[in-house]
């Protein structure tokens, strides 16, 4: 059960290094490492020497993307122990960055949403960010009733991890908070929620 066809559903157009940028910052999570690894061979020395990479391996740790990224001759590579720590460092870097930097974000939708939100908070127009969805389809969903956010939602309906209501996941997306919206599915007749379907593997 999913409500689709809503315009706010983000579109991730893919990452391609901008040759004009004076600094390239890749913000990657999990399988998002592949968005850079897949094109690393095509990046010239000029771009590699201006490239910094922030990476959190999360569930992709056994696949060792981090070692492959670290082996490339980028200007800087840093692996964070968690997404929260990565986002914190990303925010600090944005606070001192200058115009001319180009930001590339890749990973799960929940990760992209949080990184985009961090960039918006630093005055960046989200249309100037490049994003690429890699890895799980799991969603980050906000309960419209209690406002609690649940990460890695794989089914619809699902049980809100904060207030316990069964929530229907909509394609309705908030760019401001970087999450899809979940609405109580059995408000009229509590207890009649349909069984969860795995929609976001």
């Amino acid at each position, binding site marked *: 059960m999913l409500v689709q066809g809503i315009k706010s559903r983000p579109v991730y157009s893919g990452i391609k290094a901008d040759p*004009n940028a004076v600094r390239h910052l890749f913000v990657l999570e999990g399988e998002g490492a592949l968005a850079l690894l897949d094109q690393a061979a095509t990046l010239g020395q000029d771009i590699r020497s201006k490239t910094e990479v922030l990476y959190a391996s999360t569930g992709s740790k056994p696949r060792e993307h981090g070692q492959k990224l670290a082996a490339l001759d980028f200007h800087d590579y840093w692996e964070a122990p968690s997404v929260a720590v990565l986002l914190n460092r990303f925010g600090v870097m944005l606070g001192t960055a200058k115009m*001319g930097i180009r930001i590339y974000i890749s990973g799960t939708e929940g990760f992209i949403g949080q990184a985009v939100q961090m960039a918006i908070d630093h*005055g960046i127009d989200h249309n100037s960010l490049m994003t690429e969805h890699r890895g799980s389809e799991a969603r980050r969903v906000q309960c419209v009733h209690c406002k609690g956010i649940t990460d890695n939602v794989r089914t619809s309906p699902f049980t809100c991890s904060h207030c316990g209501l069964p929530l229907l996941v909509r394609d309705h997306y908030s760019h401001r908070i970087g999450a899809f919206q979940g609405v109580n599915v059995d408000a009229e007749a509590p207890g009649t929620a349909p069984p969860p379907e795995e929609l976001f593997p």
Partner: protein
Amino acid sequence: MTVNTDMSVRVAAITQVADKVKRFRLVREDGQPMPVFSGGSHIVVGMREGAVLRRNPYSLMSAPGDTSGFEISVLRVEKSRGGSAFLHEKVKPGDRLTVSQPLNLFPVDQRGRKHLLMAGGIGITPFMAMMDQLDRNNRAFELHYAVRTRGHGAYWRELQGRYGEQRVKVYCDEENLFIPTQAILANQPLGTHLYVCGPAGMINGVLGQARGLGWPAQNLHAEEFLAPPLGKPFKAVLAKSGKTIEVAAHQSILEAAEAAGIDAPYLCRGGACGQCETNVTACTGTIEHNDHFLEPQDKASGRKIMICVSRIDGSQITLDL
């Protein structure tokens, strides 16, 4: 068709502010307040001289919240089609004009962390209103203002007095001072937006440098109003109206259509907004595209024309108008 919301105004004051630049203060004849506008807006001023009706766009330079009147600054253009010469030489305090509702094609991006304004010559005018708004909202901004001579540059002294020499930098050609664009653009904090207003060469030069330094398109803003260039006379067949009109050498198609009593849509009259885009069904001759709006492939197709500034070199064009 367009709804006429023009306001009848009286010229309350005319001030010579620099060589060839006059400021006009316009107040409503009916005593009502002027609409509040946003910095960067322009109005279309309608002036009647005998049988000729001219309509030219001018940026509003007065404070956006000042509803007692609008102010515009007009540069006397040498090869004028008549608008600036008429305002400079014929219009006296007390005369009547009409003005359109304000329209903003050059707004401040409110999400920006800092606003970098670059003006060349008379391109200063939209920034006068913009700076008033930015200052009132406590937003970070700086102005880099290029003038030919100190005498040609309108308002630089007043602006430095109001906002300080740190925020208002003046560069004078005559003193061999030029805006150090490269150094400025390379050292701006994230979230800065760039606004350029001035001659086409300056706009293209500054925006080109910004793109080359990795500035994203979303942070670049420019405005240049074009006067419809002079050309050769031709015939325009207006298919929907069932009329054939003569477009004179000094007229735009839009002006010729209006003179024939046709209410064609328009907003900026300067090739920027896209409102007057018209389909071309036939053309004997070549279209001279003078606008900033159509995409190159649209211009190449020969099927669209912006009738406020573009014309043809040829004998006849048939329009879906």
